[in-house]
């Protein structure tokens, strides 16, 4: 088996070198397909992290009327205390709200002074245990609080996170559909290129079949050729993605991360990168198999 493997690798490398122009075509097709798929995976993996980071710090904001009484506040705090899912709650006074606004928006923060008076309401920021049933519980508490005297409005991030997750799924779906179509096209290109090298070696193949060479020796080089094309294409796609990431990171990605409150925009995780390379090799392997399938119909 080792000899058959070595024979397949030797012959595949020699064949790739001989047919390097057509090989470049199929390798580029695979690289393009995986670059696009990898690009979508890059976007969705960061959107996933965004959802996760937003989710882990999600809070419910309970805005109070300006004329809220101490009794009403006490009743609201008792409502929080009765909920086991709530980790803690913090009262933000109107003055504290203004101070935070100025801190967050820097130079623009002073604009609030021109409005006259303090337009920002006092509020409670409520943090939750994340877990199953959280959304239902939040909806339920939100409904109770909206009916509670002294409460002006209730807002929570879950709706945004839900929308974000829907967007992630749509983007991921588009990525998979587009990636799959391009992958099929890449596999067909590999199959055709491997068929060309098969045609170039038809005299050897005839001899191999007549002397009873094992199937591994007959098909192996073509499958290996496809596999190598796929692997090289996938690595080229990853390198192109990495270069694109490095070029864009300082100028665009870091400010974008900061704007959307994400710790950092990261490159594809190792398992996805490895998955792309393995996927590319499998696609190439499939193309090689398709091309060489009929070779042992003795």
């Amino acid at each position, binding site marked *: 088996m080792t000899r*058959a493997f070595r024979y397949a690798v030797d012959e595949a490398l020699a064949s790739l070198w001989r047919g390097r122009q057509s090989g470049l075509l199929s390798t580029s097709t695979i690289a393009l397909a995986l670059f696009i798929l990898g690009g979508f995976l890059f976007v969705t993996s960061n959107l996933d992290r965004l959802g996760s980071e937003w989710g882990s710090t999600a809070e419910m904001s309970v805005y109070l009327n300006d004329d809220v009484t101490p009794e009403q506040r006490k009743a609201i705090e008792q409502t929080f205390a009765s909920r086991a899912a709530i980790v803690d709650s913090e009262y933000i006074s109107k003055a504290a709200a203004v101070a935070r606004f100025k801190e967050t928006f820097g130079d623009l923060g002073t604009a609030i002074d021109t409005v006259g008076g303090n337009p920002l309401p006092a509020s409670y920021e409520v943090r939750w245990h994340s877990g199953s049933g959280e959304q239902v519980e939040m909806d339920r508490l939100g409904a109770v609080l909206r009916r509670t005297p002294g409460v002006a409005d209730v807002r929570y991030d879950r709706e945004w996170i839900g929308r974000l997750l829907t967007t992630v799924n749509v983007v991921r779906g588009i990525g998979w559909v587009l990636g799959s179509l391009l992958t099929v096209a890449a596999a067909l290109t590999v199959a055709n290129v491997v068929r060309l090298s098969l045609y170039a070696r038809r*005299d050897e193949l005839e001899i191999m079949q*007549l*002397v*009873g060479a094992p199937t591994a020796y*007959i098909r192996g080089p073509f499958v290996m050729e496809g596999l190598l094309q796929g692997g090289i294409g996938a690595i080229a796609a990853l390198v192109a993605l990495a270069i694109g990431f490095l070029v864009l990171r300082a100028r665009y990605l870091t400010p974008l991360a900061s704007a959307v409150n994400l710790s950092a925009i990261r490159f594809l995780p190792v398992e996805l990168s490895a998955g792309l390379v393995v996927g590319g090799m499998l696609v190439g392997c499939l193309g090689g198999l398709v091309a060489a399938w009929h070779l042992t119909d*003795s």
Partner: protein
Amino acid sequence: MIRGRAPGPMIETHHLSKLYNRGVHALRDLSLKVDKGDFVFLTGPSGAGKSTLLRLLLREELPSEGVLRVGGRELVALTASQVQAYRRTVGFIFQDFRLVPRFTVFQNVAFVMRVLGVAQIVQQRKTFQVLRWVGLQHRMNAYPEELSGGEQQRVAIARALVNEPHLILADEPTGNLDPDLALEIMNLFREINARGTTVLVATHDRELIRHVGRRTIALEHGRLVEVA
């Protein structure tokens, strides 16, 4: 390369027929026997069915009817992997040599063992031995296009022999050679046969057959017409 001559038939056909799609009967009701260790000529005019019989014996095609056994094995019943195993016991030689142009003489012969997974050191030793036997050890680094027709056919014979087959099948092996070279090639076949290998040579060259003087099976229109 010396083989024992265990008694029994090497090739056996019973009522063998081959009908092609267009209704052409290449072989009709052919029954014959070639014993182990025999040297037999298969002769007849073009279209007599010689090449068809060789293709059936190589298991490149299947008969339409009848029985075809080689070395006691029913060829029709072989699975794909059994066909591969069977072909490792048969050497083939064609009129047009069918050498790989981009391989040297040495590589053409060693290729057979290479694709059968034989260790490299064994490949080298046996290739050199068989090239010396056919008298081409001095040309082992040459490419086929640099060789004469007779030399190319000797390379093809070396390639057929290197795997130590039980049976050699040759389809018009001297068809592209002048009479002197043809006799030289026939002498090689006689030597191969003297070592115990069964040899079946298809040729329409009656003069060559008369000169070599071996058993002859004559076909015409796919039928057996004479055994001499």
